[in-house]
C-alpha cells in the first residue's frame, strides 16, 4: 500500500537537543530527523524521554541546548501556538479533551486557529461569521466521516469509552489539517480490536492526506507494522535509529528492553 506514498525531504530535524529538569537529564544530545510523508516511531522504556521529545518538537518544553528545524527554520525555543499554526498537531498520552463538550464541539476546537472572525462577529453569528462556521463544520464532518464516528457526533466526550475518546482526540488533531501529526501513545490501554482500528486510521491518514506522522508507541507489533523508521531512546539518550528490522536486531535495544547484567 505504501508503494504510492513518496517519502520526501527532511521536514523536521532535531539536532543535539539537551533538556533537563533540575538534575534530571530528560534528553541528552538527541538528534534525528523526520522526512515528509513518513511514519516515524519513537520507542523506548518508561522514562526514556519520549514524551519530552514530542513536547520539545511542538514547543511545550524549551530545551537548554540544541535546535529544532522545521521546514527550514531552525530555532531552540518553539512557541506551541506557532507550531500549531505552522501545521504541527498532536494528541496526548492522557486524553486531553473537553469532557463535557460533544464530540462535534471537541473536534471543532481543532479548527480554532483557522477561524478568522473576531469575537464580536461570532457572537452576532451573522454574515461572514456564519459562512465561516459552516465551512469549518463541513471540514469537521469530513473528519467525522473519515473516523467513522457519526453515531457519537452529539455525545459528550466524557460518556464515551476510552478507545473512542482516543479516536476523537485524533479527530481534533486532524481537524487542524496538520502537516505533521505527533501521536503520544495512540493505542495505550486499547483492546486488540480498538488497536486494529486505530492502526488503520493512522495508515489511512498517512496515505490519504500524506500527513507526516511521529508516534510514540509501546506495542512493538504496532510499531513494526506501521513505521518506516524508528528511533530508540533510553535514559534520554538515542541508542538506535533505523528501519524496524535494523532496530529489532540492535543488541543495545534488546538490552534496554530486557535489561542486562552490569
Amino acid at each position, binding site marked *: *500500500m505504501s*508503494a*504510492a506514498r513518496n517519502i520526501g525531504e527532511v521536514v523536521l530535524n532535531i539536532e543535539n537537543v539537551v533538556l533537563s529538569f533540575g538534575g534530571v537529564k530528560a534528553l541528552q544530545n538527541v538528534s534525528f530527523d523526520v522526512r515528509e510523508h513518513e511514519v516515524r516511531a519513537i520507542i523506548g522504556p518508561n522514562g526514556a524521554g519520549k514524551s519530552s521529545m514530542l513536547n520539545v518538537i511542538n514547543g511545550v518544553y524549551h530545551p537548554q541546548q540544541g535546535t529544532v528545524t522545521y521546514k527550514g527554520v531552525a530555532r531552540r525555543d518553539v512557541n506551541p501556538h506557532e507550531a500549531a499554526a505552522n501545521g504541527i498537531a498532536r494528541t496526548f498520552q492522557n486524553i486531553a479533551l473537553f469532557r463535557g463538550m460533544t464530540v462535534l464541539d471537541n473536534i471543532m476546537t481543532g479548527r480554532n486557529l483557522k477561524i478568522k472572525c473576531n469575537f464580536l462577529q461570532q457572537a452576532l453569528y451573522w454574515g461572514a461569521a456564519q459562512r465561516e462556521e459552516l465551512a469549518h*463544520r*463541513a471540514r469537521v*464532518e*469530513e473528519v*467525522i*466521516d*473519515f473516523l*467513522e464516528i*457519526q*453515531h457519537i*457526533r*452529539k455525545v459528550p466526550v466524557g460518556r464515551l469509552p476510552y478507545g473512542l475518546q482516543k479516536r476523537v482526540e485524533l479527530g481534533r488533531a486532524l481537524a487542524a489539517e496538520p502537516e505533521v501529526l505527533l501521536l503520544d501513545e495512540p493505542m495505550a490501554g486499547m483492546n486488540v480490536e480498538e488497536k486494529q482500528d486505530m492502526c488503520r486510521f493512522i495508515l*489511512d491518514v498517512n*496515505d*490519504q492526506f500524506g500527513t507526516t506522522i511521529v508516534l510514540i508507541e509501546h506495542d512493538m507489533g504496532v510499531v513494526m507494522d506501521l513505521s518506516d523508521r524508528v528511533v530508540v531512546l533510553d535514559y534520554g539518550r538515542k541508542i538506535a535509529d533505523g528501519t524496524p528490522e535494523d532496530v529489532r536486531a540492535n543488541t543495545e535495544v534488546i538490552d534496554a528492553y530486557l535489561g542486562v547484567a552490569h
Partner: protein
Amino acid sequence: MSGDTLDTFPRLLLQHARVRPQHPATREKHLGIWQTWTWGEVAGEVRALACGLAALGFRRGDNLAIVGDNRPRLYWAMCAAQCLGGVAVPMYQDAIAQEMTFVLEDAGIRFAIVEDQEQVDKLLDMRAQCPQLAHVLYDDTRGMRHYDQPGVQSLDALMQAGRDYHAAHPDFFTTQIALGKTSDVAVMLYTSGTTGKPKGVCQTHDAFISAAQSGCSFDKLGPADDILSYLPMAWVGDHLFSYAQAMVAGFTINCPESGDTVMTDLREIGPSYYFAPPRVFETLLTQVMIRMEDAAWIKRAPFHFFMDVARRCGADIIDGKPVLASDRLLYALGNVLVYGPLRNVLGMSRIRVAYTAGAAIGPDLFRFYRSIGINLKQLYGATETCAAVCLQPDGQIKFDTVGPPAPGVEVKIAANGEVLVRGKVLLKEYYKRPDATAEAIDENGYFRTGDAGYFDEDGHLKIIDRAKDVGALAGGAMFAPNYIENKLKFSPYIREAVAFGQGRSEVCAFINIDISAVGDWAERRNLAYSGYTDLAQRDEIYKLVRECIEKANADLATDPVLHASQIHRFLILHKELDPDDDELTRTRKVRRNFVSEKYAVLIDAFYSGKQSQFIQTQVRFEDGRTGMISADLRIEAARTFPHIPAKKAA
C-alpha cells in the same frame, strides 16, 4: 396508476419521473446533512448506471450482485439491472465467505456492485474460486486509490461512462426498458439456507409489483410517505418496503448515515411508515424504561400514571372501540403530557403504519406500542411469497395472530397443519433447482411455507411453529414446542426454553434464566450468588420461574388447539445453552434433537417422576479448552389450568 404498461419497475420509475419529477425519491445523510434526490434525478442516475453497465457488457438475463449497506446507489443499481433486462441479486454482506462464494458461483455473477473497500477485498479474494466475476464496482472510494486489479472501478467512473454512452446512443435506454416483460425475473433473493445450501428465489416484476400494490392500497400508502431503509437489502422485507412499494407508491426512502446512527436518523426523518423486527421494538422499550427508572420522581409519577391509563384504554382507542368518556379524557391529557413526547423521543411521531414480523412478538411489548398510539401491526410472509401473505387490517389487531390473508392471496391449511399459499406473489422458481421448486409447490399450485398454523374464529391466521417441529402428545392433542417456548421467552427472566412432549402424556420444559435480568432481580433483593449455576438453583429463582410458567399456562389454557400443551414440570438448567457446545445454532435457535440426546437423563427424570437429578456436562470455553460442570437439578411442578374457551381478544 393508469394504463396497463406500468408492469415493470423501470417503467414505474419513468412514470414517477414524469408525474412527480420534483418529489423526493431518495434521501441519504452524508457528512451530517440529508441529501435528497428527486424522482427526476433518480431516473437520470439509474440511466447512467444502466448505460454504464451496458457499456461494460452487461447483457439481458445477466445477474447483478449487490453487496453492502442500504445506500442509494445500490438501490438504484437494482433498477439499473432491471432496465437492461437483468436480475438484481442483493447479498448479505456479513454472510460467511463460503456462503457468498456459493451465491456468486450459483448465480454466475459477472458483475458486482459493492459498497466499499471491505466488500471489494472480500470479492477479490473470492475471484480465485469464481473466475467469472469480471467486474467489481464500488460506491465509496475511500482507501481504493491503490487498487489496480482488472475490472475494479468506482461507480463514479461507471456512471460517467454511462452518461457518455447515453450521449452516443440516446435511444438505447428507453428501447431496453420497452423490451422488458412483466413476467421477467426482477430479483433473486437467496434464502438463508438454515437447512442445506442457500437457494435463489426468483421473483418476477409481476409478483413483487402485485405484492407491493396490495400492501400500498391496504394501508393507503402514497407519495407523501417516508420510510427509513435500514434493514439488509438482501432481505425480502426490505426489498418489498424500500424498493417495490416505494416504486409502486412513489414514496421516499431514507438511507441512514451508518448502521450505528439508525436511531438518530429515525428521529430526524420521522418516517410515516416503519418496519422493525420485534427485537428492535424490545430494545427501544428497554431503553425507555431504564431512562424512566433513572428519572426524578416528578417525571416518573405522571409517566407511570398515564402508562396505566394507556394500558387500560390506549389499544381500544386506536382500534376505535367504545371507551369510557373519563378514560378518553385522561388519555387525551396523557397524549399531550406523556405519549406524544415519548413517541417523539422514539422517532415515531409521524408513524401512520408500523409493521413487525420475522419472530413472535411479546403481547406486552405489542400492547405497549399500540397503547401509546403507534399503529403497530403484524404481517406474515416468506421470501418465496414476496413477504406478503397475511396483514393485520387497521382496527382488527390481535397480538397472537397475523391477520387475514392479504388481498389476492389464497391461504389454505393442509391436513398436517402446514400453511399453504397460492397467488400472484409466489416465486417463479428456485434458480437452477427444478427439484426444489417441485418440492415446494404442490400440484395445485400451492406453496408449502413449512410453517404450521390455523385460522381462528375471525378468519385470522395464527402461526404456531415450524411444521416439521409440530407433533402430538400421547393423547393426540397438537404439540408445538416453539410456540410454547416463545410464550415462555416473552418473560424477561427466561432467556431460553426447550419444551418436550412429543408422544408423551404431558409437556415438560428446560429453562435457561436470563442472567442479566434475573441477576438484577436478585441484586435488588440482596440475594448474593456466585454465578449462573448457583443462581439458577435458588428457591427464589425457581419460584420466580414457576410464576412465569404458570402465567404462560393460564394463557395456553384459552387456546382452542394447544390448551393440552401446558407445562406440567420444569427444571432450570445448570448451564446456559451455548452455540459453542452445539446446543444452539449460530443464530441462537435451539437444536432440539441434539439437546434432547445430550440431556436424555434429565428428560427421563421428568417422566419418571423424580424430584431431582444429578447431571455432569462438558462445556467448551471461549478459548477452546473444555471443562466439566455438574449439579443436582431440582425438578418442580407447575400449576396447570382447565381449558377455557377464549374470549374475544382485545
